[in-house]
């Protein structure tokens, strides 16, 4: 690739796309797939676990619910079953012992069943018997409703648990009629056990409800047997009941009133001991309230819902064998059951994280490895290309004719050195005079595509540099200006080109070091030792040959040098110079100066092809005729001077210190006349118009230069532009002028525009073709 090219077409871009795919997309894509798979599996596992957990929770809650139902049933059963048993016993007992049966049964039950509080027995005639626990909870108290001295009284008798009477008392019971009590009235016309509404005893802090059963005795009377059962014990049971870790249970009746549950007494107190006000409060029991709402809307069964960012499970179920419409409501946070699932998910996530980290590390290793191997492959390919490049260069050097001939220029060596090492400049230096001096055999500048050589350096100027070369070691310096061995060389040789890096390869000859190959800004040189050595060796053979030639003394003797032998013979002074025409004013010019308005006409002739002496003679005659014509016309138009230089003529006018406005007119006239004369003369000689004229007008330097003879010379931008106009004339036989000439002459002459042109150092300008006079 040329170092200037921006895109190297030999490097395919798709390779880099493939590389990116291979290096990054594939590993990371695979990694993402792995991560995705892990996440999907984790999610699936979590979901299935959660579903299982929910099902398990429901089953657990169901089991708990059954257990509680059983407990509640067991709790209430003595009341319900006791009613049936007691009523059966009383109904079948003779009426004389009915009281004793009642009291015996009551005493036995009160002793063995703690939740039972008391028993009632009433009949249609208003008789009433009660057995209850004593105030201390241990003894018993039997109460009958009697009429004593015409007054309705309660006759209370106190017994120990052994049946020993310890005392009695009468208390007023005016107005009391057991037949009007709810427990009695509710059984009217019914044969099953009936429940009253629960009622509270603030003094005893008891929450009691009554079950009653109507039956007929053997004597034909109708009796109602009632059992008071305390719900406090049920609440205490529910209080201690654990549902999951933190869940609990509550019993509600069909109207949502709390029958039993945690802290029932506090609720009762808050409700003013009014059972009807003991409704579920969403503030104190938010979960139960929500669960109850679910039940009301969706009926019995397990329900899940979220409350305050926490999931709960509730289950509502009817309580059989209990009072009508009682509902058991259980609630528990889902976490209580699902916590192990969460732990399992967390563990899965941790495992997944570890796998991902490992995968990342492995992917990183893979990327690194692939990139390294890719880099190595690329380097190998580059080396292959470089070797091909070097081989081609070596072939080119080898195919150069007269490679080892010291008289032929070794241009190919420096050129190939520059191209292969990508150097700015390569030069071959030869040591002279036993190392006292060094001469540049050839130097090739890549940017300028130009060879140069012949300059000489002496040891006095570059002592350190000479010593470095003579040491025979390769020298490579990144900044030649700062290394003391190369500072002088940099100042003298490199600074002109602005190069920084310097590589010096000593050239070994048969008798030691004979010179050096010097590379400037050769970025590839450190990698190309073999090639540079090869070139240095070839240069070494050439330099050795050159040295041999110099020593064998093949140089020409002084008397054979052309012109040297005749220098002693005096000849008459030449009576011609390069001035074809000289106005008298030329003699007045002694010094150099600036002329403000010089008109310069440059006439260029292209080299004609001549074949044979006759043609040459004819051509010389024609040239002479043309020169004579120029002289004549110049004198007629009063031109200042006409200078001949090879195939060019430079006609000038207006070389005066004061501005001469007629100069340009005179020279334009002369140009037109000369063109016509030349055309005619060339046509007569059957030749094409092989000339072109360029004309410019402006300031120029001029003056006499040299000593004996002094020669008048004119130079400056005006002369350069006139030459450029002649050189770049559109056709043969045309007069091309600058816009300055056009501006000066447009009123007098006819012009044809050629366009605008840019020339480095001269700038932008228009070119015109001078056609004719107006």
């Amino acid at each position, binding site marked *: 690739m040329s170092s200037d090219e921006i895109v190297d*077409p030999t490097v395919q871009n798709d390779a880099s796309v493939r590389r990116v795919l291979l290096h990054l997309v594939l590993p990371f894509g695979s990694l993402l797939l792995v991560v995705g798979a892990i996440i999907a599996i984790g999610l699936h596992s979590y979901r299935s676990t959660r579903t299982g957990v929910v099902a398990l929770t429901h089953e657990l809650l169901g089991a708990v619910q059954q257990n509680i139902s059983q407990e509640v049933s067991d709790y209430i059963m003595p009341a319900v079953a006791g009613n049936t048993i007691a009523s059966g016993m009383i109904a079948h007992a003779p009426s004389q012992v009915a009281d004793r049966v009642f009291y015996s049964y009551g005493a036995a039950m009160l002793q063995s069943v703690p939740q039972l509080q008391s028993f009632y027995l009433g009949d249609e005639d208003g008789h009433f018997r009660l057995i209850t626990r004593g105030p201390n909870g241990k003894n018993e108290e039997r109460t009958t409703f009697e009429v004593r001295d015409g007054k309705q009284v309660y006759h209370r008798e106190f017994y120990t648990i052994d049946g020993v009477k310890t005392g009695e008392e009468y208390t007023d019971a005016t107005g009391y009629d057991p037949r009007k009590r709810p427990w009695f009235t509710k059984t009217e016309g019914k044969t099953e056990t009936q429940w009253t509404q629960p009622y509270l005893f603030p003094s005893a802090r008891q929450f009691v409800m009554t079950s009653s059963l109507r039956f007929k005795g053997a004597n034909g009377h109708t009796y109602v047997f009632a059992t008071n059962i305390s719900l406090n014990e049920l609440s205490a049971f529910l209080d201690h009941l654990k549902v999951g870790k933190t869940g609990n249970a509550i019993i509600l009746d069909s109207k949502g009133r709390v029958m039993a549950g945690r802290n029932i007494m506090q609720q009762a107190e808050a409700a003013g001991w009014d059972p009807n006000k003991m409704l579920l409060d969403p503030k104190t029991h938010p979960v139960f309230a929500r669960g109850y709402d679910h039940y009301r809307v969706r009926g019995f069964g397990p329900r899940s819902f979220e409350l305050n960012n926490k999931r709960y499970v509730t289950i509502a179920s009817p309580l059989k064998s209990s009072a009508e419409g009682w509902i058991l409501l259980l609630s528990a946070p889902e976490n209580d059951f699902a916590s192990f699932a969460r732990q399992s998910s967390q563990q899965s996530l941790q495992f997944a994280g570890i796998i991902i980290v490992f995968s990342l590390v492995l992917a990183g290793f893979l990327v690194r490895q692939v990139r390294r191997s890719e880099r190595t492959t690329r380097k190998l390919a580059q080396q292959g290309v470089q070797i091909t490049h070097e081989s081609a260069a070596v072939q080119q050097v080898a195919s150069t004719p007269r490679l080892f001939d010291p008289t032929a220029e070794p241009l190919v060596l420096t050129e190939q050195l520059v191209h292969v090492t990508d150097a700015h400049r390569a030069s071959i230096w030869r040591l002279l005079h036993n190392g006292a001096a060094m001469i540049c055999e050839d130097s090739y500048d890549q940017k300028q595509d130009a060879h140069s050589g012949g300059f000489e350096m002496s040891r006095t100027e570059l002592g350190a540099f000479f010593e470095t070369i003579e040491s025979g070691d390769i020298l490579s310096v990144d900044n030649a200006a700062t290394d003391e061995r190369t500072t002088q060389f940099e100042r003298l040789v490199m600074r002109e080109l602005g190069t920084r890096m310097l590589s010096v390869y000593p050239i070994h000859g048969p008798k030691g070091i004979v010179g050096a190959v010097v590379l400037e800004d050769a970025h590839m040189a450190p990698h190309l030792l073999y090639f540079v050595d090869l070139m240095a060796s070839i240069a070494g053979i050439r330099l050795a040959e050159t040295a041999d030639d110099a020593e064998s003394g093949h140089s020409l003797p002084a008397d054979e040098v052309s012109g040297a032998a005749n220098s002693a013979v005096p000849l008459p002074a030449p009576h011609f110079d390069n001035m074809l025409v000289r106005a008298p004013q030329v003699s007045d010019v002694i010094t150099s100066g600036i002329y403000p308005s010089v008109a310069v006409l440059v006439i260029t002739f292209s080299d004609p092809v001549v074949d044979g002496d006759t043609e040459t003679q004819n051509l010389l005659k024609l040239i002479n005729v043309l020169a004579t014509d120029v002289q004549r016309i110049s004198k007629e138009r009063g031109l200042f001077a006409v200078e001949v230089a090879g195939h060019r003529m430079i006609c000038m006018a207006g070389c005066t210190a004061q501005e001469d406005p007629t100069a340009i007119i005179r020279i334009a006239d002369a140009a037109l006349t000369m063109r016509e004369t030349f055309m005619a003369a060339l046509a007569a000689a059957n030749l094409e118009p092989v000339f072109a004229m360029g004309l410019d007008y402006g300031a120029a330097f001029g003056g006499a230069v040299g000593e004996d003879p002094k020669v008048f010379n004119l130079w400056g931008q005006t002369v350069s532009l006139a030459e450029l106009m002649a050189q770049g*004339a559109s056709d043969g036989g045309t007069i091309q002028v600058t816009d300055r000439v056009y501006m000066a002459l447009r009123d007098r002459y006819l012009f044809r525009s050629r366009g*605008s042109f840019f020339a480095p150092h001269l700038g932008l300008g228009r070119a015109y073709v001078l056609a004719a006079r107006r």
Partner: protein
Amino acid sequence: MDTRTVGPLLELNKAVPSFEESGLPPVPFSMKLMPGDCMVVEARSSSRATMFADLCSGLVPLDDGAVKFMGLDWAGLHDRELNALRGRIGRITRRPSWPEFLNTHLAITLQQLHHTSRPLDEVVAEAARLGELFGLPGLPVLRPSMLSDADLLRAACVRAFLGRPRLLLLEDPLEASPVELQNPFLSAITDARDRGAGVIWIVRNHAIWQGYRQGITSTWRLADDGLVEVRTA
């Protein structure tokens, strides 16, 4: 002088151009151009000559075969590389190829400015030098449509030889050109060949290249039956 490429510079290997796309005969074209070679191709039809140059530049789709430039198959490259590779070709074509939205100096230097990192000054200096060589008083700065045909041809020569083209596809600039152009043109061809460039000079007139007969490596004729080598005495 640049290091020569190993192998042929341009190789047409049984390349069958698409007739629908090019109008060239759909027959296999085979030839090799080595670095430094100058090949003359005689083509009577200027449109066919242009299409042949397009074929060499990888602009004509092929039905079969391959065209390789500097060892790279045009068909196997992507746009970025294709364009970069075409940056190594200098071309003079009969097809209108001057953009009207650019002035001539930019149109001339555009290729180098686009494809290389050469400084502007260097490119302009080289273009001006070539301009002088081909008979222009500098680098023309007007729009191409405002230049005369002869000057536009000179500008085309400058554009083709600017930079260091590895391949020159020249569609007969000497036909109907000023006679002064011949020497600079032949001189520029010789210089380019010395630097290892290959030249395909497509001519219509047999007489045009006779002055450079000694420098011609091979002569071919583009006819209905494809590219045929002409044996010259």
